[in-house]
């Protein structure tokens, strides 16, 4: 992974010092709340329902075990013992005391971490594929490019006060695991006929109130121009993006208003001035950064398929449980004899994406023992051990199980993406965690979950869509109706290459109705599906009507008393 040199370190420490000064002036009454707000946001600090929330950057989701241990110790020392991993591959702490934030940032800076630009109207943490560098379908490793973009966007003087936040995602594989089409800018690494690297550039995608799929700007942008082109694009947005209404200020609204062809022409025109300028990337710099993402010292191991790994352990009483974990939580690796392992943060009873201090420490220990001391954060809010020898899978499973990190549910209905919602977030219209918990309870039977198969269920507590509900095969959105919490359901969303925005099925439901509604739609799916057809494809084939009919069918309602009536907040 990328290691800071003396200059990188000096820059991050200067930020800590700057923010310490700003915090002191705010606490002394020398800086108004209005003046302080954008400054604290650009350091990841929100004022939430109960306490300030700090969002710590995990650039493109890559962590060393040392960094994860620091996150654990920061969580222990300054929070209440639990951190929340987000869809931007970051970590949020929900119970922070404002005067301590500079000290937290200092602890983080000592392990080359920060909270720079994790919020605010600026270029945010760049996200990528959590299987970067190890996926068999990879064209090129996206991480060096993500790091180059991180450096370019860090304290970019021209783009600290954009109309709205700006998110960039990059994928280097043929299958998009970074949701690039729903980002302000999405970059797909491609190779031309000469074998040279470039990027297909998309712009104007996004979720939120107006979900839109990004439009293609350029087919092949040679890598040298990555920074100059992006700079031109963000400049056009900075100058012409709307600033009169925050709900219409994202770049997607501008792209839609002027049309993607016209927008692309304006960017091209702007770019002609900066193209080949000093910010043009050099072979030396790309090599300097790429070198730091070189492969770890893999052993020469025999490749075994996972069925035989499972068979070896079948003698144990736990054979079936292990086989299930292998089926869901273990992923192919491009190096023979190795696999990637997802440590599930979707354990029933805990909030999706949450990790306790003990779990963070256990994950760090697993990384040290089995995976070259590195981990990834997946945007689906799980942790990933990227380089595990297949021969160690059983040992990893046992230790992960002890730490509560081995729920065999990756990609299943229980692997929900869920925002913190109204329990924590001041922006939310409704709670999302009790809904997730009620669904977990209803679908607690693993046999049933395995039978249902691949299904993405995503929950957002408000239109800001942090839970990516538009992209779920089933999406649940919390809405406010006259002060009460209701939930709207969308079907047919998808992430990846076939990114698609889900469709609303009809009027919204009360919280207590949701588990029944989901269950009735699942029952309908099980009756209607063709062989091995995943939920999303059945919806695509048949459309909404059979599912709508099931969702609103009343006769077999069995209300779940475990979640209460709509709350008044």
């Amino acid at each position, binding site marked *: 992974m990328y290691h800071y040199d003396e200059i990188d370190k000096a820059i991050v420490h200067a930020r800590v010092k700057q923010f310490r000064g700003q915090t002191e002036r705010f606490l002394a009454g020398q800086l108004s709340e209005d003046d302080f707000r954008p400054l604290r946001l650009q350091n990841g600090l929100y004022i939430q329902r109960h306490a300030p929330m700090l969002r710590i950057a995990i650039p493109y989701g890559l962590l060393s075990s040392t960094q994860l241990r620091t996150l654990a110790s920061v969580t222990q020392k300054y929070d209440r013992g639990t951190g929340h991993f987000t869809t931007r591959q970051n970590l949020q702490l929900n119970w922070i005391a404002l005067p301590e934030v500079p000290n937290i940032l200092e602890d983080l800076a000592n392990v080359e971490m920060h909270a720079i630009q994790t919020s605010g109207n600026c270029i945010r943490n760049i996200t990528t594929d959590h299987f970067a560098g190890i996926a068999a379908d990879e064209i090129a490793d996206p991480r060096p490019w993500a790091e180059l973009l991180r450096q370019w966007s860090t304290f970019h003087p021209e783009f600290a*006060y954009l109309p709205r936040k700006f998110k960039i995602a990059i994928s280097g594989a043929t299958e998009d695991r970074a949701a690039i089409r729903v980002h302000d800018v999405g970059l797909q690494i491609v190779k031309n006929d000469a074998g040279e690297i470039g990027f297909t550039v998309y712009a104007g995608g996004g979720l939120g109130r107006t979900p839109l799929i990004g439009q293609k700007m350029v087919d092949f942008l040679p890598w040298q121009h990555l920074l100059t082109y992006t700079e031109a694009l963000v400049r056009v947005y900075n100058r012409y993006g709307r600033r009169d209404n925050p709900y219409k200020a994202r770049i997607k609204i501008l792209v839609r208003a002027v049309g993607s062809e016209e927008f692309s022409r304006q960017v091209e025109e702007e770019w002609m001035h900066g193209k080949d300028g000093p910010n043009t990337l050099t072979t030396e710099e790309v090599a*300097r950064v790429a070198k730091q993402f070189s492969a770890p010292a893999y052993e020469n191991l025999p490749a075994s398929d996972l069925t035989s790994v499972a068979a070896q352990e079948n003698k144990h009483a736990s054979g079936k449980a292990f086989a299930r974990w292998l089926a869901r939580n273990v992923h192919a690796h491009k190096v023979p004899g190795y696999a990637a392992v997802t440590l599930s943060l979707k354990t029933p009873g805990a909030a999706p994406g949450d990790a306790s201090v003990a779990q963070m420490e256990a994950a760090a220990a697993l990384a040290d023992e089995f995976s070259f001391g590195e981990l990834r954060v997946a945007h689906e809010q799980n942790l990933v051990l990227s380089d595990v020898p297949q021969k160690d899978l059983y040992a990893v499973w046992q230790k992960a199980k002890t730490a509560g990190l081995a729920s065999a549910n990756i990609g299943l209905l229980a692997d929900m993406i869920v925002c913190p919602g109204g329990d924590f977030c001041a922006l939310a219209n409704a709670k999302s965690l009790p809904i997730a918990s009620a669904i977990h309870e209803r679908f607690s039977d693993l046999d049933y979950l395995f039978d249902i198969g691949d299904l993405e269920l995503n929950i957002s507590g408000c239109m800001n869509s942090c839970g990516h509900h538009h992209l779920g095969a089933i999406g649940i959105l919390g809405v406010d109706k006259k002060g009460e919490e209701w939930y709207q359901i969308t079907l047919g969303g998808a992430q990846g290459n076939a990114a698609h925005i889900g469709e609303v099925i009809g009027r919204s439901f009360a919280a207590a109705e949701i588990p029944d509604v989901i269950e009735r739609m699942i029952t309908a799916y099980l009756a209607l599906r063709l062989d091995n057809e995943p939920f999303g494809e059945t919806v695509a084939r048949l459309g909404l009507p059979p599912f709508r009919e099931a969702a609103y069918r009343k006769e077999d309602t069995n209300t779940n008393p475990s979640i209460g009536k709509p709350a008044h907040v």
Partner: protein
Amino acid sequence: MSKQLIKDGQLIDNHWQTLSLAEDATPADAASLLITQGSVIIPAAAWLAQRDNLLARTEHLHDIAVSLAPTFRVEDIAHDVHRFALIAVEFPKFIDGRGYSTARLLRERYAYRGELRAVGNIGRDQLFYLRRVGFNAFLLPPEQNAEAALPSLNDFPEVYQGAVDQPLPLFRRRTA
């Protein structure tokens, strides 16, 4: 009165008067704005409306500066920038960052070399970025302590990306 103008890293007196138009001013208002003698900063719209007359008074032109509102397209004044000793860029709200792009365009594309002054709702926490995009003067609002703000011009010891103050990105200097 305390000095509120920082120029080239020093606190100095501001000897320029500012003439402004109402927010909803029409082109006719811009054309009829009375431009007084002495060093005045006038709205760029007034400059465009009265350009021929003002150019006829060539002997006074060194006393006229223009001020660009966030919505003003710097392209519209590009061929005149060399005439001005001072261009002001307005920040009615510091969270409106259009002026940062305006400054870079003036310096990098239109080769403006005179005083480039940020005015309005700006403070010490913006100075570093403002300086990087090409401003060399900053008029802080009266309630701010301009002297205490001076060190913020140098909040960071190094920068990653090329801009006006340092056109070369760090990666072109790292190996040097």
